[in-house]
């Protein structure tokens, strides 16, 4: 039997804006197996980011069930969601969103500190993961002293270092040039293989779709296509 990292059953999301109901997602059913490398695509307003937020426990569905790494996200309170995000989910954002006053190593350590790991373990693990993402020698630099690609690598290191079951990446290549974006995707494929982490992307970028092993297309809040692509077109 296939082990699933994410299961969605009849998930819908309605936003209320000035008493007007906006149907962001309608009746989403989805099973994402462990170690999958999946891409959510679709035009703006199709519900990609909303779906990513629901899976990541950043928002709650209006109806339906969401299970992530064995936990019912839709039933968790604020504290439970924070704990789930901290231990089971990693995030990579379009704008990197590193903490500007912390160095690359401290940004990576920050998540481990939240997890309550010892300073010695944090230091060793941060060095190891930064070396793995190719930032050896740049650990002491702050985000403002790194290029966009380097910052996104720090963000990947930060997402992976907590040893999550799932990494959610929202438009991770949107601010990168094509060469840097390709290098980043190769790194993420490597992380997927080496760390056995499930990756879900939300993107418009053709490159990201090419690297994915599964491509889900959304339109007006509904899944309109679910294409399984074997080992991924490139990866």
């Amino acid at each position: 039997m296939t082990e699933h990292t994410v299961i969605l059953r009849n998930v819908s999301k309605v936003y209320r804006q000035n008493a007007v109901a906006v149907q962001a997602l309608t009746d989403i059913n989805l099973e994402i197996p462990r170690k999958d490398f999946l891409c959510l695509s679709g035009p703006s307003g199709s519900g990609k980011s909303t779906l990513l937020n629901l899976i990541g426990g950043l928002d709650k569905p209006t109806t339906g069930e969401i299970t992530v790494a064995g936990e019912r996200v839709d039933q968790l309170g604020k504290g439970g969601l924070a704990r789930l995000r901290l231990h089971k989910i990693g995030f990579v954002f379009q704008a990197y969103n590193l903490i500007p006053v912390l160095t690359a190593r401290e940004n990576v350590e920050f998540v481990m500190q939240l997890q309550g790991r010892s300073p010695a373990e944090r230091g060793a693990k941060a060095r190891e993961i930064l070396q793995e993402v190719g930032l050896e020698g740049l650990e002491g630099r702050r985000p403002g002293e790194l290029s966009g690609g380097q910052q996104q690598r720090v963000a990947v290191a930060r997402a992976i270092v907590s040893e999550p079951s799932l990494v959610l990446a929202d438009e991770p290549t949107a601010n990168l040039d094509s060469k840097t974006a390709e290098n980043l995707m190769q790194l993420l494929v490597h992380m997927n293989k080496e760390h056995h982490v499930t990756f879900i992307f939300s993107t418009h970028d053709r490159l990201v779709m090419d690297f994915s092993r599964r491509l889900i297309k959304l339109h007006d809040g509904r899944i309109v296509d679910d294409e399984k692509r074997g080992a991924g077109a490139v990866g």
Partner: protein
Amino acid sequence: MNVTLRFAWRNLWRHARRTWLTASAIAFSAALLVFMITLQLGAYDMMIDTSLRVYTGQLQVQRSGYLDKPQMRSTVPEAAALAAELRAAGFPAVAARAQGFALASSGSRSYGVPVSGVEPKYEPLVSTIPKRLAQGRYLREADAYEAVIGATLARNLKIKVGDELTLLGSGRDGSVAATIVPVVGIFDSGNPELDRHLVQLPLAAFQEVFSMGSDAHAIVLSGMELRELPKAATRARALLPADRELVVLEWQELLPGIEQAIEADMVQNWFTYIILIIVVTFSILNTFLMSVLERTREFGVMLALGATPYRIGSLVMVESVLLALLGLGIGLVVGGGLAVYFHLEGFTFPGMAELYAQFGLPGRIHAKLSFNAIAVGPAVIFLFTVVAALYPALRIRRLAPVEAMHAV
């Protein structure tokens, strides 16, 4: 250094100018409070010391109950001998005193006045009256029949040095106490009450006129540091004969008005200080609200990463503590420096010496250095700063990750 501490410290310096301005406001108020409070406490000590020195003394040995009901028969037996014992025990300034009441007359004028019997040899050690003679001289011999009187009383009686003063009262045993004594000196103590009423006679003469035997009504002790008085009182109590119902009274009991005046002044001053602190607190609150608002997006990311609102709120609180400590550190150095300087040199302003001399006060106020004097002001500022940071820290609890991450 702990990551949170390092994080908080660096956050402070994202806007260095704003941080320095806020720290300066804290430093200024802390320095001002340290300086003002040490000077204020120094002024109180001077006021207490000066008031006690004029006449009351720092401690008094009396018969139990005499303070509330000063009757002639409530005496300290063998007062001069007991005073000598206290002197021998190391108390620097000790003098026996007897108190009576008489009708003082000169020519056609009469006034009811308190009459005090003093030891001319020892009275100058416990009172400034012997040094504040406006005319004539002070009492010399313990058994001489002579008197010194207050300047206002002399004016009212139209009496001058060398004139005779008639005293008519009742002695301890109810007999008539009457005498005619020459006025050898007129004092101007600076205390209007004493200058209007007091007549002093040598103790032996008083005891004779008022049938006191060798008793008196008080043994006055002085010449000690104010902070040593509670210990000195305990030591004096141990030296008193157990069978004579004697008590040692401290200055707060002898002159309760001084303490009440100090308390009233302190409340008034603290009202001003609290207004200053509230103004500074609003500046700090503004800084932290700005700081939290402009980092809403970053807090959203931290929430997404798994940080709890409590954790982020704690970070803001740590920032406020660090900012407060920075400002208070500078304020303590500046304020403490001023306090030490004015403790050593004394504080004065042009004309102060002449003004204070009229009331027998020294022309300089020496700031009082003590842990409380220096720490209380900054501690209150610290408390207000931390409370000010609570509001923005608590606002973080309302942040939702998705909305926060979309904040500009």
